[in-house]
């Protein structure tokens, strides 16, 4: 039995092991390697992708659960140039090692879609780890992106 879903707007059909987590499908099969493996247990958020617009841990999501769903990875964000959140990340010089940042960015995108003008407490709902400790700059980048997105409207 095969599963149909979309990744970054492209139709995908998968007939392999339906238990395979989306993370490994994206990396090993679709070769979208921006989605990172951090813990495999749903804790760290390095593997965050958007599922129908909501931030989810792709290491916890078997491919068989994806029928008809829309997946967006970091490669699919800002398909027409950089997304405002990505620009803000560069402006605020957020990355250090950079490994968690695709997941952080997607979590921020999902947050700003739900809450366009987030309070610090709203930002606290992001539970992605940054081992390098870039949290202060992540907060600044989210605030900057929120301003940019509001101005763009």
């Amino acid at each position: 039995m095969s599963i149909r879903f979309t990744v970054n707007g492209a139709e995908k059909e998968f007939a392999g092991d339906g238990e395979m987590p989306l993370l490994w499908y994206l990396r090993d099969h679709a070769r979208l390697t921006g989605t990172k493996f951090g813990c495999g247990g749903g804790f760290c958020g390095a593997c965050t992708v958007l599922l129908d617009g909501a931030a989810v841990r792709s290491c916890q999501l078997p491919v068989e659960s994806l029928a008809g769903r829309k997946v967006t990875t970091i490669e699919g964000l800002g398909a027409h140039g950089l997304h405002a959140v990505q620009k803000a990340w560069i402006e605020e010089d957020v990355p250090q090692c950079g490994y968690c940042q695709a997941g952080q960015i997607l979590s921020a995108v999902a947050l700003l879609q739900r809450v366009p003008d987030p309070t610090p407490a709203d930002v606290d709902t992001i539970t992605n780890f940054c081992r390098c400790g870039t949290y202060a700059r992540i907060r600044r980048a989210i605030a900057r992106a929120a301003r940019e997105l509001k101005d763009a409207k």
Partner: protein
Amino acid sequence: MNALASVVTRRRFLQASLSASGALVLVPGSTLAADGSPTPENPLGILIRIEPDNRIVIGAIGAEIGQGVKTSLPMILAEELDADWSQVSVEQKPLMIDFSGPEPRFRFGSQGAGGSTSIPDGWAELRQFGAQARWLIRQAAAARWNVPPEKVGTRDSHVIHPDGRQAPYAEFAAAASKLTLPAEPVALKDPSEYRVIGQPRRVVDAEEIVTGRARYGIDVYEPDARTAVMLRCPYFDGEIASLDDKAARAVPGVRAVVVVPGPRPGEPFTANLATGVAVVADDMWSALKGRNALKVEWTRGPFASESSAALDAQCEALLGKTGQVVRNDGDFDAARKSAARVVTARYREPYISHAPLEAPCAFVHVMSDRARVVAPLQQPGGASRAVSRVTGIPRPAITVEMTRCGGGFGRRLTNDFVAEAAHVSKATGWPVKLVWTRTDDLQHDFFRPFGHHELIATLDESSRVTGWTHRLASASKYYRRADVKPEDLWTAELYPDDFPAYLVPNYRLEWHEVKSGIPRGSWRAPAHTANAFCVQSFVDEVAHAAGQDPLAFQLAMLGPDRVLDYAQHGGPKFSTGRLRTVLERVAREIGWGRKLPRDRGIGLAAHFTFGGYTAHAIEVSVAPGGAIAFERVVAATDVGRPINPLGIVAQIQGGTIDGLSTAMNLEISIRDGRVEQSNFDGYPLAMMRQMPHDVEVHVIESTADPAGCGEMGIPTAAPALANAIFAATGIRIRNLPMRDQLALALKKA
């Protein structure tokens, strides 16, 4: 250290040539022998490329682990080249070892990342390379224009004619490629002319990172490569009792199962760190399923009864006895007898794991007579050694390419994961990417040593410190190194010239060896993280015991500004004045001494780490239940001349978070001879909501030679927090991690 001195005396020179596309290509091509004559080398790699369109490509020589050297090292070179930074791009260079001499040596200077040495190691040589490249172009321009070279200016990748005309460097590529550099080093710029060094520059790879294009070790997908994961013996030095791999081999996609022997018990760690079984498959998911299907019984090894509780008991017993005396100034016992007041405290530091977010992984392809490594590495030279040891292939036939690293923190100083991948590739003949899971990483690390510390201070009638001892019982990280004698195991645990050496007349350091089977290694700012927590907490304790203001007390201990000897890494000198400056700066910024509301407190700490001076001032409020809120976190750092202030701020901020997260939350505990934690639920790195919203960093302007900055932000964060908690609540936390100790103590009170 010694390596640095040898780089300076062994001057390297650039060789210029013209590429087929017309680019000026500069290679560190020859060295001067002791008699001044050049030594020929094989041209291996390009350090600088000036393209026909005047873009400049600079090679990044260092291992990028998030500390920013892919940005800051090229900045140093670009400065002396007088390059337009906005037109510079940076290209990661592979490991370049020159094997033509009697001893292998780095072709571009040290390429490892450890001890915050990339910047100080690169400082002299990269400036000289930049200056040599600029010299060639100026000479070529002067010849073309028929003016004296000293009349030719440069700016932003352009040469400037005495009449004001400008021309891009690229116009002189062909002419410059035919010139030879003088035998003497080329003159460097006056620092007042710096236009790149000292300017805030963003991470060069930022766009690749935020778009997911940056390539880490786990992103290496080579043609025909297979993926391997390993099941390692969870018991320290245990072995395979029985193995049934039938079910694993039956998993679709699994291609091979390979036993990887570990070191024998007690043997030095020179390759992999534990016995294990590798499952080699078409992709990661098949490999993981295959691993789950393995049936392995393990022997429990010689440390089957080891536990954290037993280690605590061992340490407590040792602290009751005199240890190996490793520094002894004056007569502490006499000072104690005549003291007006004696203050004693014991502290505990747990084992902790590096936990880089990208767990160890390596691509290795072992062929009949050569091998190729592509991996996230902190010690690429060690990776080549490890592969050679496992395969027997001579090092000159092993190429090592460095990807970005998803964090390092010292984990990648050992190349055990490269050795494993080499073993599996050799056994199967396939190119192999070996990937560790988080469970593998937390259970099989070279952990930061465990230890208990006892500090005693003696004071005279006027509350001056007359004596000080620091007795440490710890599990030395040097315990399985081939080149370290038993009597030198302490050197990894206590740095004898650290504060307050030379500042207290009767000063004694003692060390006890704790027996433990768990592998140990270097964790970001190694012994500084443990020792600064104890020493800077204790200074605060002694000040309070003596009824003194902690700031005034520490400043009095530092005394007048002077320069003291510092024989360990980060020396040769330690300036009390530079430490005083950062301490006073954070105190001033946070408003030390002002009246605070109830349940609020400010804590201070200062420390000298590997050539850099950092202080923290932290203000917390404590809720009735014991929850801590960070009101303000301020740091000041003096790392010599700042190369990239934006990067320094990032490193100090990140170090602060690392220090706080680790002290508040993290411990690797042992039970029945194995690690208890298996993922981030048991090893909870701090999330955003637990950490300060901002970390204010003040970078001290300095003209001293630059130090690194990757490790300087950590050691003082935890003691400043503990001191703040004490100021707010009167409760002293001496055992790490802090976890719910404050809540429990408040409940009791």
